[in-house]
């Protein structure tokens, strides 16, 4: 590390600090705002964190499913929406990741990069940026207005930005991968598509999996929030219980969501450990 770049680093840190203070000032952030008169509500809500409800906090009609069963089925719905969206996004991410990477530009047969390749690359990157710049919940609202409550549109709403994000990350992972094996296979007559799927993609699989699992966690959270729009995921019941001030039930649902994310995390760790062997 030479003198010039350490000076540069100092400048960056100072600039960031100034920007942070300036932004906080512009937003008129004040810790006093957190102190309110509603301390009892805050207390009620957070005190139930230690004693989440195991049963309904109000009388329910006879024959209603027990709270635990309802929670589990809501969790299952949450997983279903997330998994369906993940499936679509993975396929989309791998395909568009190929087009958004420079794989097609590896030493084309004549040694020159074709204009059509570059155009396609730019077009796909633009498209991916477009679909991921709109949050999945925003997509869900748009689709809700257009199609009403429909499972398919909910899944597509989740899948669209996720595809955009995965395509971007995948393409960049591919571009960071060592090209030496790719050149070798290209020199042996392999096509760019073969090189992408059989040489470059395998090398990125550990990172690719780790990131996909993280995206799956994000989808689980978003899928839960979809419930606020009326889909039968955890969010639906969280909203209902919250409105009725049944905080114990809310915590029951929140802990279930936490459990889902934790399970995905453990699962991801296991698979990645196996891949390292």
């Amino acid at each position, binding site marked *: 590390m030479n003198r010039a770049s350490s000076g540069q680093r100092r400048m960056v840190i100072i600039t960031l600090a100034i920007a942070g203070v300036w932004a906080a000032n512009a937003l008129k952030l004040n810790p006093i705002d957190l102190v309110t008169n509603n301390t009892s509500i805050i207390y009620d809500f957070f005190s139930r964190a230690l004693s989440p409800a195991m049963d309904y906090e109000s009388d329910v009609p006879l024959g209603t499913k027990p709270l635990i069963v309802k929670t589990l089925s809501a969790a299952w719905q949450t997983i279903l929406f997330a998994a369906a969206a993940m499936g679509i996004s993975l396929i989309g991410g791998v395909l568009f990741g190929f087009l958004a990477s420079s794989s097609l530009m590896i030493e084309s047969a004549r040694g020159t990069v074709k204009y059509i390749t570059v155009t396609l690359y730019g077009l796909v990157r633009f498209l991916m940026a477009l679909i991921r710049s709109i949050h999945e919940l925003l997509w869900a609202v748009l689709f809700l207005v257009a199609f009403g409550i429909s499972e398919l549109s909910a899944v597509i709403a989740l899948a669209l930005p996720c595809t955009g994000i995965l395509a971007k990350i995948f393409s960049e992972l591919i571009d960071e991968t060592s090209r030496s094996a790719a050149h*070798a296979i290209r020199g042996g007559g392999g096509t760019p598509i073969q090189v992408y799927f*059989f040489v470059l993609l395998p090398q990125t699989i550990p990172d690719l999996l780790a990131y996909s699992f993280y995206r799956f966690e994000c989808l689980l959270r978003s899928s839960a929030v979809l419930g606020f729009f009326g889909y039968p995921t955890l969010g639906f019941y969280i909203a209902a219980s919250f409105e009725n001030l049944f905080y114990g039930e809310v915590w029951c649902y929140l802990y279930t969501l936490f459990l889902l994310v934790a399970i995905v995390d453990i699962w991801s760790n296991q698979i990645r450990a196996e891949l390292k062997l």
Partner: protein
Amino acid sequence: MNAARGSLCLKNVTVAYQGIEALAEVSLTLKPGEAAALIGLSGSGKTTLLNTCNALIQPTNGAVSIDGKKFSEMSSQELRYARSRIGFIHQSLSLVPNLRVIQNVVSGRLGQRSFLGGARDLLFPSTNVVEKVYEVLDSVGIAEKIYERTDRLSGGQQQRVAIARALFQDPLILLADEPISSVDPVRAKATISLIREICKKKGLTLCVSLHNLDLAKTFFPRLIGLQDGRLIFDKATETVGANEINKLFNLPDGCIDFGPLTSKPSMLGKSLE
């Protein structure tokens, strides 16, 4: 395809990177089944020369042809076919580390396979393919490693995987760029001897770049000397004189050992001041 037998011809090949010539007016011909060693210092253009032979590098001037057909005049299909019959062992081995040995070997034949055929070979190889891979691995002496992950193998074993991958292409021409740079001296000799024998047995045209002069002289009937991208000599090994070798390696006359190559005492003294 016409009766392809593996002759390789470079005619006045010049390769320039931003005006700097890595290869200048090089012409040479390898007849089918011929074996030659490419010698010269680092940066003399050996790698560039070999890379023009499977069209990974396009010459700025001149032409490279395989069995009389110029790369520059081939259609994409023809180029793909020609490349699929040229095995190349790279200096950095260029294997996919987290794939199994069998998958790396099979990927050598991707040039002769469709996309789905290639996918099948890699994921669900038929018994026939497995047997062929086993055979090739057996010929390089690591058949028992067939299902091992490639990055778990030693440098020497990975070297053999790279050779097996090139052989699995069923090539007519085998090119090797410093194939022994990652193995110890004993292994180096065994590796060169192995490559040489396989090529002899199968009648493959062979061109190997080496910086080990002894091995080049021992195993190859023909030496090609490169210096600063220029062809200095190209003749039968026994006719190459000591002064030609000295000139090639920038050594003073009458000095064949490599001692002075490392550093000059006078320069060492200067840098200490």
